[in-house]
């Protein structure tokens, strides 16, 4: 468990540092690349939580597709590729104060509810699947209990695809 804690804190530090760089850097392309580090770190946390299928989907969908989409967006909107001082609003201290206040409220609520010692994760957080993998359990849940939401998501994705093409198409 000590190794898991080391793993957690190393990747948590990477996530927080990269996320702060995403919202503070003066270069749009750097922001997209720091976003890759955040998404990879979150994927590593999923591995730690024994959700390996979610981790694989995170890498495929987020790092593989969403970041590429962002880079295309940066390119097509001809945002200045180099340094740009105007990316942050001049009222950013208000945004920082709001975020810190929100963090204070949420941290208080979390400590109030869960404390330090009461809710440890199960030492073996596997969900009890086949051959030490819980992908089978997750797929059984998707195609059993959650089949209708899954189909709704499929239709939503199709609608979003058609909508994006209609919006971005040149007349």
């Amino acid at each position, binding site marked *: *468990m000590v190794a898991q804690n080391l793993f957690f804190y190393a990747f948590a530090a990477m996530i927080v540092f990269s996320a702060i760089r995403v919202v503070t850097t003066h270069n749009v392309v750097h922001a997209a690349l720091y976003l890759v580090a955040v998404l990879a770190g979150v994927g590593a946390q999923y591995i730690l939580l024994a*959700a390996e299928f*979610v981790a694989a989907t995170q890498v495929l969908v*987020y790092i593989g597709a969403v970041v590429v989409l962002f880079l295309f967006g940066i390119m097509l909107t001809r945002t200045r590729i180099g340094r740009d001082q105007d990316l942050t609003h001049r009222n950013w201290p208000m945004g920082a104060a*709001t975020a810190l206040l*929100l963090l204070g409220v949420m941290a208080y609520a979390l400590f109030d509810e*869960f404390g330090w010692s009461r809710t440890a994760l199960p030492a073996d957080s596997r969900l009890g699947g086949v051959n030490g993998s819980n992908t089978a359990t997750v797929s059984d849940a998707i195609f059993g209990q959650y089949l209708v939401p899954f189909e709704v998501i499929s239709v939503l994705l199709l609608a979003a695809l058609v909508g994006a093409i209609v919006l*971005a198409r040149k007349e």
Partner: protein
Amino acid sequence: MDDLLLNQFLLLGAVLFCIGVYGALARRNAVLVLMSIELILNSVNINLVAFGAMQGNPAGAVFALFIIAIAAAEVGVGLAIVLLIYRNRKSVDLDDMAEMKG
């Protein structure tokens, strides 16, 4: 200090959420605001997967997968809208879009 605590993951999610909120409030470029919204969605996913692992319930992972799909749809439509705004106004600066201001 030896066991993984649920609160570790929830606090990481809270920190990531607040960084995303700051980015959505303080950035002027529409593409960067969309990136901050991705940070917020990821923080929620960490929470869902952590609760699922605590309860030994696959629902957490299933909902995280649904949110990943929704986020992909959201970013596709969002970037199409940003592209349309750029085509009409030659700028993606959110401060320039003030027609609704009284």
